């Protein structure tokens, strides 16, 4: 045996389990405000992820049990299910999850070796391939003209049929970010757009509550030392700064920073996705740069791009930069006058 003979209690699976637990408040809020469809999505994604992971591990001759129990596939599945529209055809979440696990994770070498965040790869592929399905979001109960029962939701997701000739419009709608974009293109000002019924105090009715829950879960992760403050803080601060600058410059055409913080994938991304250790920067300074980069890119894509949200693309773009960021932000070593790396080699 080799020292140290004693080890701490943490393990990969406890870390992953804590992430899943921290997501529970948001899932609960989702169910209360939008209905139970999200649970079906999560279940579908989890089953797909585990099946794909097991299949790939077998193919790669890895022991299945420890690697399935590490929980990393489940985290990917949950994050992807939460990022996708809940009331979507079943195959959407299945294909997305399968792509995330098989291509983005296992083909890159599995746990610890993937370059890109698997959940975000799955999301990006889906939104490019199936933009229509990916933008049909379930309306919150408070706004929907038709309430689907759990059974009816199942019927729609697996059979594509709605009860008695009801139209899809009755249960779905565009997201607040999407609405803002289309309405701005129609020439309306931010002020008048935000008077529409789907908007709440900060961003969308319902969705802003979920965002608060993500924030709470994220703070729990930080308190549990699963994540550090660097990435979420840099991400949200940069997003707020960029949004604030444009908002101050032209409040008629740019949404206020709190709208950006509380809508779309900002909170989920900041605390749960950008903080993925495998694909993120590891040095403290590097994490700040990484988070800030995601925040800035997210705002640019939201404000000037053509996609409803920018978090996924921002994360993927910053994933590419991680090796470079890490190499250039190596901290000073104890007793060294300068940073290691460049220039200090004897």
């Amino acid at each position, binding site marked *: *045996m*080799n*020292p*140290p*003979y*004693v*080890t*701490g209690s*943490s*393990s*990969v699976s*406890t*870390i992953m389990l804590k992430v899943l637990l921290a997501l529970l408040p948001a899932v609960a809020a989702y169910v209360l405000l939008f209905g139970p469809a999200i649970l079906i999505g999560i279940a579908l994604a989890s089953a797909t992820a585990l099946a794909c992971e097991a299949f790939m591990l077998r193919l790669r001759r890895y022991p299945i049990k*420890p*690697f399935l129990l*590490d929980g*990393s596939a489940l985290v990917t599945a949950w994050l992807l299910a939460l990022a996708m529209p809940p009331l979507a055809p079943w195959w959407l979440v299945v294909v997305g999850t399968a792509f995330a696990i098989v291509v983005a994770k296992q083909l890159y070498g*599995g*746990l*610890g*070796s993937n370059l890109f965040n698997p959940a975000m790869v799955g999301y990006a592929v889906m939104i490019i391939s199936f933009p229509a399905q990916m933008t049909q979001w379930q309306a919150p109960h408070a706004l929907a003209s038709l309430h689907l029962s759990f059974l009816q939701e199942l019927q729609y997701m697996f059979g594509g049929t709605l009860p008695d000739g009801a139209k899809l419009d009755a249960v779905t709608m565009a997201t607040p970010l999407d609405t803002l974009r289309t309405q701005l293109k129609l020439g309306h000002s931010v002020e008048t757009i935000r008077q529409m019924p789907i908007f709440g105090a900060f961003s969308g009715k319902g969705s802003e509550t979920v965002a608060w829950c993500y924030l709470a879960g994220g703070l729990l992760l930080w308190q549990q030392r699963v994540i*550090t403050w660097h990435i979420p803080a840099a991400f949200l601060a940069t997003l707020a700064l960029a949004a604030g600058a444009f908002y101050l410059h032209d409040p008629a055409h740019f949404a206020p920073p709190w709208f950006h913080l509380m809508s779309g994938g900002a909170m989920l991304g900041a605390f749960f996705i950008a903080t993925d*250790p*495998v694909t*993120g920067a*590891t*040095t403290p300074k590097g994490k700040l740069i990484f988070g800030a980069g995601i925040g800035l890119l997210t705002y640019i894509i939201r404000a000037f791009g053509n996609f409803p949200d920018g978090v996924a693309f921002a994360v993927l773009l910053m994933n590419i930069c991680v090796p470079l960021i*890490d190499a250039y932000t*190596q*901290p*000073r*070593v*104890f*007793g*060294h*006058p300068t940073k*290691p*790396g460049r220039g*200090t*080699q004897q």
Partner: protein
Amino acid sequence: MRPLYRFNGGVHPPQHKEESSGHPIVPAPLPARLVVPVHQHIGNPAKPLVQPGDRVLKGQLIAQAEGYVSAAVHAPTSGTVSTVAMHLVPHPSGLPDLCITVEADGEDRWIERQPIDYRELDASTLRNRLRDAGVVGLGGAVFPTFIKLNPGAQQRVPTLILNGAECEPWITCDDRLMRERAAQIVAGIAVMRFMLGSQEVLVGIEDNKPEAIAAMAEACAQSAFPIEVVAVPTLYPAGGAKQLIKVLTGKEAPSSGRSTDVGVACFNVATAYTVHRAVDHGEPVVSRVVTVTGNVREPRNFEALIGTPVSDLVAAAGGAREGTDRLVMGGPMMGFDLPSPEVPLVKACNCVIAASPALFKPAPAPMPCIRCGRCARACPVELQPQELYWFARAKNFGKAQEYALFDCIECGCCSYVCPSHIPLVQYYRFAKSEIWAREKEKKAADLARERHEFRQLRLEREKRERAEKLAQKTAAKAAPAPGEADAKKAAILAAVERAKAKKAAAAPRNVDNLPPEALEEIAKIEARRAQVRDMARRPVAEEKEP
């Protein structure tokens, strides 16, 4: 209150101090045979001075320091040297090393001990006395103390720090020593302070040892010069020299240099105790206090002779309990498995833990690194262990050195916190020893290249010299000096004359009374012979002409 500083990271492993800290130090029984390794310190092995059959007294020098970085080794008891041979020693390699075995006579008779008045001696003589008393750092690093007590060009080291942190779990030998022999430690501190010319003296003790802190504070209050006893927060590895210096002074010892570069010297409290014994009592280091704990019936601290078999110590602690599968030297964070219970106690050994699977659970199977960065947050040297792991694993040694691999103190904090249970320290040790081996190989290759090139040059030169000599010789033959030629000719002529005379003398003597026909016959034969000789000579001459 003195402001304390923090080092990065650190961990809080379970303490397990109370098992052995409650009992006073007891002398270990005198074993029948003591095995004393000659290499118990950093640097060159000591050179044996005794042979099998020699009688030795307790404290007698049996191996002397060799080279600058080295220390002496002494007979731990009186008796007879039985062998000077290879014997298993406590080392992670499990390989044997040169040891002097002393069969104890049971009398434990001391050699004549001469206390030193350290104020009267000049500094270098005093340091040599400590070297010859075998005083080395007893915290575990066993660096020869006399070298660290050289203030160098600055003439003085302003701050002297005594390390009583004892941060590794299970170990309590320094704790007991401070509780029971605080005054003697302070006496040792006085010598060290004198040698270094320090103004400020600090004793750092982790705050989980209130009794030791109280005892030391009391002894220090009696001291003629001010000594400050500082309770430092319990956080592994606060007992690392550089970490303790940082905590107490906020200064960082430079990576490439020594702590004296920032005006601080740091010694273990047990080292101060041995300095006192060596100086004020003339006793070299022949014993030390060692904690024997873990899965033994009566965990204790023993004052044991160097060379005592570890199995004797375990037996003295009531023997190992059921389930003990091996013995560990040192603490659970930085210790190692002993290759055999028969290895001797050495100066570096502060603790022996009887280990069992229940005590130290086998680590779960490693998982891939997920770059969570917990290791970096735990690293007291502020390294990026996840990067070092990657480079060491890929055997990318150049990059590992660039990321300051050699600053790693192998404290094990990274492995302790790693959620993937990767044996990180193992990787760093592997990389370090591989780099050292390669450097050695490169030096050997450079030496061989140099010697080969020199040999080529030498052969070339010798060839040239031979050629020159040969040329001279042939030149001499081709153009001999005239006088010399005459002399030669004369000599040859003389030789020819002598040969002729010889020949004449050897002419046939039985021709005198022969009939004339016979004489004529002989004359004819002679003429023919001459003719043949002539013929034989001519073609040669003809051949030579063209």
